[in-house]
């Protein structure tokens, strides 16, 4: 087939990009070469719109072993142990086929982790759906949850935490982000950089089929009415084969046979082979006739673009082929020597004894286009004047109930009951806490992890929103007693060719960077998902932060459950009563305008670190950060989880009770302590200039405040637990 501009455009390339390809090659590419270019120059692989801004991220830290640029980031957690982690999006495929889309999302991120030699120890997920009233929402949610569970449960990695939100901006474009953490000996990490000449290139795993051809371009294609036509590109996952692949790879890695390894993710064999060669400044030669194919008569074009799952590419030490094959035979997986490394710095493909493609690697990697897209700043919205009589007709009890039953606050146990969260026998904080926690098998240490996003804040003011998400992640880790270590990020945005969407991206990244620098909370890996829009309407900017923290002694873990009657409950951090962009504003006042709460980095850091001191000295027995829904929502959850009540003290604050109880000021926590420790706690708080309020005293089973609230914890629990279950059952 003659390649021309029209065909190039059909492959997702722009006119000038096609021209650039012809110029660089000094000829018109053939169809296979065009396919390779289109895959490599696609937003998904090339990061062409985001690269310029991602460079600004704070990626350095004392504990960082590997920052962005590898399959996943790696941090040092002491005693030769390292944690490998990353988050990835599978938004578009999940919208088209929720079960398989979500399942293969989990499969993909798991491979990124074990590719580096790490055994996966925990999964997380951040999932975002349209309005509950939207006709597609329920089935998408059901399918996505089943898919995540179907894959993670089967492979035997616990899903320890997650996040689920509903917002109409996701009506036509849901978000499914999956994160995995793995454990590795820090001296036995594997990378994707090829090295050495004439080294055998090995293909292992499942056979190649016609699945997902053009998947990478689909991930970057705007949804429109022709979406049905894109359907056949969805891949089917096989968690069973992935489990075998995981065990086989780890077995092979125990020995010194592997020079470089890379999973075949987006753009399959194309991107994996090009990336390995590019990193090693080498060439690579592949014989496509040797690829194990599932179907007959697959063409080189199809083979290079296939996104069949559960496959890996390995550069092996010469002479180790037999040994490696034996391992893969044992696990009943395909194994084939398909090529070798060369000194040509080209990718050269052969098929049926003919050379079918030849491209200098640097044209695909370094010379891929980079765009400095136009972007627009978002002005900080004006503060609203909330008139007194707005609150007059409101009653605290009703507001609390309404908020606890609202989709974004309601309990998500219906979801995580379907995820195996206890397999591997080390989960010490299951979903439902501020962060999930797993022990480092066989040691005193534990690792905490959380995924967070605040799309409404980011939409109102991306810079502040970007800062806020990082801070929230930090707080969630502190709340379980973990020292925050590093983050990964999944940047879900609309169309980068749209100045407003691009501006949201740029400013969120800026916010993330500032916060991550101030908190010394580096970014070690991540993923960008653009073009999350339907019919010209983008989603709210949704950067998802995956945070990881470390407990040096797992026995120091803290939960949010209220523990003992008579204990004191304090609010740490100052409450100013910021209601704009809060759940209260949205659910009770139907008000969507105004700025998000401000971030004060100094207080954020100081409050968090002081709480860690209290935990270290065993002075507090529970802790919960204050997030969506403010103090009253947060303390209600502590009551529900701990099956205890609280008598709340009369307010001393100047702001009204709604602002006090539902305001979403940042940097705050609620802690519970035994009365006898109050003096010691106060001393530490005072020494560190940390502001606190006395919120109340734990009681048997009632939440009481003046004459405004008098509810049993069971009532609260029912209100909080029923919404999602009922929604899904009907």
């Amino acid at each position: 087939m003659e390649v021309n501009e029209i065909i190039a455009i059909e492959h997702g390339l722009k006119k000038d990009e096609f021209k650039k390809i012809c110029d660089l090659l000094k000829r018109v590419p053939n169809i296979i070469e065009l396919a390779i270019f289109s895959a490599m120059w696609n937003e998904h692989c090339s990061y062409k719109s985001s690269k310029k801004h991602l460079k600004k991220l704070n990626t350095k830290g004392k504990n960082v072993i590997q920052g962005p640029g590898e399959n996943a980031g790696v941090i040092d957690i002491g005693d030769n142990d390292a944690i490998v982690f990353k988050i990835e999006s599978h938004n578009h495929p999940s919208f088209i086929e929720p079960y398989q889309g979500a399942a293969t999302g989990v499969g993909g991120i798991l491979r990124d982790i074990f590719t580096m030699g790490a055994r996966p120890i925990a999964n997380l997920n951040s999932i975002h759906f349209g309005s509950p009233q939207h006709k597609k929402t329920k089935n998408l949610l059901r399918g996505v949850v089943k898919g995540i569970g179907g894959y993670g449960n089967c492979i035997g990695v616990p899903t320890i935490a997650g996040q689920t939100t509903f917002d109409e901006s996701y009506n036509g474009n849901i978000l499914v982000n999956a994160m995995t953490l793995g454990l590795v000996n820090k001296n036995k990490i594997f990378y994707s950089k090829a090295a050495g000449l004439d080294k055998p290139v090995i293909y292992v795993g499942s056979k190649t089929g016609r699945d997902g051809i053009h998947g990478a371009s689909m991930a970057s294609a705007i949804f429109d009415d022709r979406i049905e036509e894109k359907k056949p590109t969805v891949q089917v996952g096989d968690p069973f084969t992935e489990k075998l692949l995981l065990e086989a790879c780890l077995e092979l890695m125990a020995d010194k046979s592997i020079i470089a390894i890379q999973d075949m993710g987006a753009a399959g064999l194309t991107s994996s082979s090009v990336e390995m060669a590019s990193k090693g400044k080498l060439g690579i030669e592949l014989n496509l006739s040797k690829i194990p194919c599932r179907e007959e008569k697959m063409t080189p074009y199809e083979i290079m673009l296939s996104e069949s799952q559960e496959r890996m590419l390995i550069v092996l030490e010469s002479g180790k082929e037999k040994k490696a094959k034996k391992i893969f035979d044992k696990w009943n997986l395909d194994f084939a020597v398909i090529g070798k490394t060369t000194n040509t710095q080209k990718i050269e493909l052969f098929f049926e004894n003919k050379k079918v493609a030849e491209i200098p690697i640097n044209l695909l990697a370094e010379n891929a286009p980079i765009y400095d897209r136009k972007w627009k700043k978002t002005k900080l919205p004006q503060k609203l004047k909330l008139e007194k009589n707005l609150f007059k007709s409101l009653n605290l009890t009703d507001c609390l109930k309404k908020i606890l039953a609202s989709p974004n606050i309601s309990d998500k146990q219906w979801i995580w009951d379907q995820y195996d969260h206890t397999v591997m026998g080390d989960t010490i904080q299951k979903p439902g806490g501020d962060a999930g926690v797993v022990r480092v098998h066989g040691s005193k240490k534990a690792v905490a992890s959380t995924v967070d996003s605040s799309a409404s804040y980011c939409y109102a003011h991306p810079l502040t929103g970007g800062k806020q998400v990082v801070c929230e992640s930090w707080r969630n880790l502190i709340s379980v007693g973990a020292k925050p270590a590093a983050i990964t990020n999944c940047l879900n945005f609309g169309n980068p060719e749209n100045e407003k969407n691009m501006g949201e991206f740029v400013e969120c990244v800026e916010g993330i960077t500032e916060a991550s620098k101030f908190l010394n909370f580096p970014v070690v890996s991540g993923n960008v998902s653009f073009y999350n829009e339907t019919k010209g309407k983008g989603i709210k900017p949704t950067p998802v932060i995956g945070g990881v923290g470390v407990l040096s002694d797992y026995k120091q873990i803290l939960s949010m459950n209220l523990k003992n009657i008579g204990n004191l409950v304090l609010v740490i951090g100052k409450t100013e009563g910021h209601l704009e962009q809060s759940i209260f504003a949205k659910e009770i006042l139907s008000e969507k305008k105004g700025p998000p709460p401000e971030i004060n980095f100094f207080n954020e850091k100081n409050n968090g670190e002081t709480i860690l001191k209290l935990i270290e000295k065993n002075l507090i027995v529970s802790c919960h950060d204050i997030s969506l829904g403010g103090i009253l929502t947060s303390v209600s959850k502590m009551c529900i989880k701990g099956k205890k009540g609280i008598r709340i003290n009369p307010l001393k604050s100047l702001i009204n009770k709604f602002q006090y109880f539902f305001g979403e000021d940042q940097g705050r926590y609620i802690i519970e302590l035994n009365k006898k420790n109050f003096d010691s706690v106060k001393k530490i708080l005072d020494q560190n200039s940390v502001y606190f309020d006395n919120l109340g005293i734990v009681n048997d089973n009632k939440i009481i405040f003046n004459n405004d609230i008098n509810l049993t914890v069971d009532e609260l629990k029912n209100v909080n637990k029923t919404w999602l279950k009922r929604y899904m059952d009907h």
Partner: protein
Amino acid sequence: MKSTVIIFPGSNCDRDVDVALKKFGFKNQMVWHNDCSIPKSDLIVLPGGFSYGDYLRCGSIAGKSKIINSVIDFANSGGLVLGICNGFQILTETNLLPGILQHNKYLNFICKNVFVKINNKENKFFKNIKKNILEFHIAHNEGNYFCSENELKSIEDNNQIAVTYCNHEGSENEEYNPNGSVKNIAGIFNIKKNILGMMPHPERMIDSYLSGEDGSLFFENLLENF
């Protein structure tokens, strides 16, 4: 005491049960499904997981594996066999235990703590456990125990019901039946009571930082009864 855990491709609780057995004093060894024989053991455990991806029917393909004949011989000669979750499914698929485990009634995977009542203590698995109700943990998609009425009658007549789902006080209401099992059955024995299959995972309940500690009672007792 020597125990053996069989690893099938797709098993994923093999390490967990190995950890538990060793913690309570067993000398445990792992045996690969493609091996032809099992070293001398006092107990064989078929662990949880998704052997062969749970494809076709859970446990059905494992029931055709090479090692399974050795397990059957061991069981038929009176050796102690414990099948947990997927292991239970394998035991029914090999006809070492009657009935079958179907898809959960409410069609979702369930991962949570449940209570089970011990129905029969005249066997090595539960003999000296003081409590009658244990808090255990389940994690499965196909734990809905089913058998024909005749079979059920024979199971009851022979005292083969091992554990049943209940609440913390022992009430066996349908409300406390998480998956729709006949008679709230969570685990059963063979007639001779040397084979136990059950859906709950005692190996996930072996220290106070996990979901509970009643699994410790189970393993401690098992060791004691040798």
